[in-house]
């Protein structure tokens, strides 16, 4: 922390290096100083505490993938992590590194928003918690100051009667997805929708939470028709994809609509099964 406060603005934190080192190899970034966190053993824990799971920023993505309490308490995260790149990348890449990199096409930032995670920033003298929804400020930009590092992620257990789904479409397995969505549906005791959440990747300059669309579902029953109108609303009005060489914006919106319908159906079905 001393090094970072002395060199704030010029030093880069090296976590798993699966995004930073490629950028350095291409000479896109040339930091004068790297501060390597790989030997900071106390940042790589995963543990349950009360109704949350606490994850150290240096926990490897591969450890998230095989953690039994994540599988049980936060199945959305468990199911989504294998979609991150390839095993060789997940063996080295960290949860904290991916979150702080804030790539709009990455899975972990949007999952943190979907799961209402809190992120703990720390500088030399103080710590603070930031809600995931306030953390991502834009493309590759977060609420962290240049003398702060992300040290811990707090993810609440998914509530009872909650179904989940994660879906993405990539040109090839392991590539960045052209579009992706995380869906959560919580039913009340009568089987009506208590709350729903849809968060998209590669659909704007950060994770996109389609809150106005999911609001349409609250208090109602999830039917083919209501799901379709939410998918149409979210894909036409709430996301703002940029398009790239693999997919035009029209195609991205089309994918968002189709994936939203499939994901909401799967999430609603799973929520029903847990009744």
């Amino acid at each position, binding site marked *: 922390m001393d090094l970072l406060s002395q060199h704030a603005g010029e030093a880069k934190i090296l976590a798993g*290096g699966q995004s930073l*080192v490629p950028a350095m190899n291409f000479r896109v970034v040339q930091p004068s100083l790297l501060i390597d966190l790989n030997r900071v053993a106390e940042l790589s824990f995963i543990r349950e505490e009360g109704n949350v799971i606490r994850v150290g920023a240096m926990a490897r993505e591969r450890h998230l993938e095989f953690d039994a309490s994540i599988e049980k308490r936060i199945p959305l995260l468990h199911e989504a992590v294998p979609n991150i790149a390839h*095993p*060789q990348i997940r*063996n080295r890449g960290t949860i904290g590194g991916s979150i702080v990199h804030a790539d709009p096409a990455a899975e972990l930032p949007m999952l943190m928003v979907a799961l209402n995670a809190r992120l703990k920033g720390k500088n030399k003298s103080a710590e603070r918690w930031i809600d995931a929804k306030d953390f991502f400020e834009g493309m590759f930009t977060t609420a962290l100051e240049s003398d702060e590092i992300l040290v811990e992620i707090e993810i609440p257990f998914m509530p009872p009667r909650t179904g989940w789904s994660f879906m993405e479409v990539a040109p090839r397995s392991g590539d960045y997805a052209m579009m992706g969505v995380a869906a959560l549906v919580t039913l009340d005791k009568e089987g009506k929708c208590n709350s729903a959440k849809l968060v998209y990747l590669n659909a704007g300059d950060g994770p996109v939470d389609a809150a106005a669309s999911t609001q349409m579902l609250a208090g109602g029953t999830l039917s083919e028709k209501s799901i379709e109108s939410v998918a149409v609303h979210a894909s036409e009005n709430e996301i703002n994809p940029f398009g790239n060489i693999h997919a035009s914006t029209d195609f991205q919106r089309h994918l968002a609509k189709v994936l939203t319908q499939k994901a909401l159906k799967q999430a609603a079905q799973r929520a029903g099964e847990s009744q």
Partner: protein
Amino acid sequence: MTQVTLTVNETQYTRDVEPRMLLSDFLRHELGLTGTHVGCEHGVCGACTILFDGESMRSCLIFAVQADGHSVTTVEGLAPDKDNLHPLQQSFWEAHGLQCGYCTPGILMTMIPFLRDNPNPTEDEIRHALSGNLCRCTGYQHIVDAVKLASEKMREK
């Protein structure tokens, strides 16, 4: 210069290196272990895959200084001796799993931990595990066959 001491293929090495040197370059230029290939240098092609403390990783995305105190296995560490191949290598030979061979070391080093964790994989699982390694000869069908053959050979042992 920074001093690093690491174990590569069960031999300990100590060298003075620039902190900026990649592990892939260290293996090739400092230790002369040119079996680890360098393709894209941004983690996509998989040619530089090695085992780092027993798990597959991209050696082009790790600095040599970060390997201090760690154990690395490269393709040179697979065969038990000069006259015999590792069953995975033997299977690639028998099933025509390589053409130009550039991607082969990275694929072998990906498949070692994969077959350790999945000794009896389906074709689908093999294809999924292969997705982080590109073969410009596009010889994927034979690579899949070779991995399947290797899983049979390694289960018999």
